[in-house]
């Protein structure tokens, strides 16, 4: 998969705006929209994965020692912090 190098003219853009590849949104970092950022307190985290389930943007990643936020896509909505049963996620102003 590759991002478009040059800007296509109207004759060349694909009909209907359909992109001939799936998952192209991975090429575009969208974390800059965020004004608050979730920070996980590893000491409190029980690795229950509730934040991983609830994140609407799949920005909570599973890693070996629990979970981690992918700040390149996290929008800072705070759902993970609200759902964490042990209050291990704090929303910090950017």
């Amino acid at each position: 998969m590759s991002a478009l190098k040059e800007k296509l003219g109207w004759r060349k853009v694909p009909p209907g705006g359909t992109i001939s590849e799936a998952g192209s949104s991975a090429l575009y970092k969208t974390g800059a929209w965020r004004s608050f950022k979730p920070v996980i307190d590893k000491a409190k985290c029980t690795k229950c994965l509730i934040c991983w389930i609830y994140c609407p943007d799949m920005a909570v990643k599973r890693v070996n020692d629990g979970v981690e936020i992918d700040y390149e896509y996290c929008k800072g909505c705070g759902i993970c912090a609200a759902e964490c049963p042990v209050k291990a996620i704090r929303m910090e102003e950017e």
Partner: protein
Amino acid sequence: MKRIGLTGDEAIAYAAKQCDVDVVSAYPITPQTIIVEKYSEYVANGEVDTEFINVESEHSALSACIGASLTGARVFTATASQGLALMHELLYIASSLRCPIVMGIANRSLSAPLNIHGDHSDMMGSRDCGWIQIFAENAQEAYDWTIQAFRLSEDPEVLLPSSVNIDGFIISHSMEGVEVLEDEAVRAFLPPRSGACAVDPRRPSTIGPVALPDYYFEFKRQQAEVMKRVPVALERVCREFNRISGRRYGKFQSYGMDGARTAIICMGSAAGTARHVAKALRGKGERVGVVKLWLYRPFPVDELVRELEGLRSVVVMDRAISFGAPFGPLCSDLIGTIHGKLPKLKVLNAIYGLGGRDITEKDVEGLYREGLRMAEAKAPMVRVKYVGVRE
């Protein structure tokens, strides 16, 4: 070929039945209801092999149609009035995603006040939505156009949705003798949809992504260009349909234009009244004609200029109001069409028939008389009048 009695709504349903439609999703609304009612009867009786998706609104109906169309299915729906208004945002998505859906519309007024009768306000409110828009005069035309619309929409050069419009009640609920084709003839004329479809699990793709200021405009510019391919494709479709039916369609149909000084331009059932009056007046030596527009979008600009060249004046009949605009929608299109090309043509815009108000022979004769008077005038002029409304 056989002749059977069908209302306008039934004629559209019968045509869709013969078109081997894969998916229908629709919601009932007067005066369109008979179309989907009849079609669901075909489904219940096992007369068609169609997935009928019941939904809770027109918004969902067209959403389901878009999804189905993107899988490569042949898709049909129908609506009217408030239903079309509720579909509004999806109309644009269907055309922008290039979904060749066919929709029957029994044109009806828009609320308020609530009124279930015929006028063109519904389609005119969505005239910029990127659909091919066809207006049929009677049940026969509704039948013929529905079949042709599938061929046109699914043409690989086109891939755009089409609406086939009939005047609510006046046509949708009036029974006429309709000549229907044999099932096999329709099947041969309209083979199953072919070519690549957008949704294909073997070739995953992204449909309906976001396009920001750096790309959106290019997509819209391309869409405007695709519309320009429609007239050529339409000619191809109509020529072939003529071969199997003996009936010849096109962008518009003219009557009495030979040597005419004035002519009525209109769409839908009013064309019958206009032709009838024109015939009587021509019998008395008056030089009057009729141009009945079948294809409203894309608007047949160049062809109309050629057709109107010999006229001194033209009467444009609008069964809708464009509030705050200088003219009714059809007249605005016409004036844009003739601007700079037919500078001497005088234009009378007649707004008529709202909410199902009858347009009588006397009304039409009055319009011809006024058109003929305007034809004598030296200077160019444009006039708007409301016909058949109480002062």
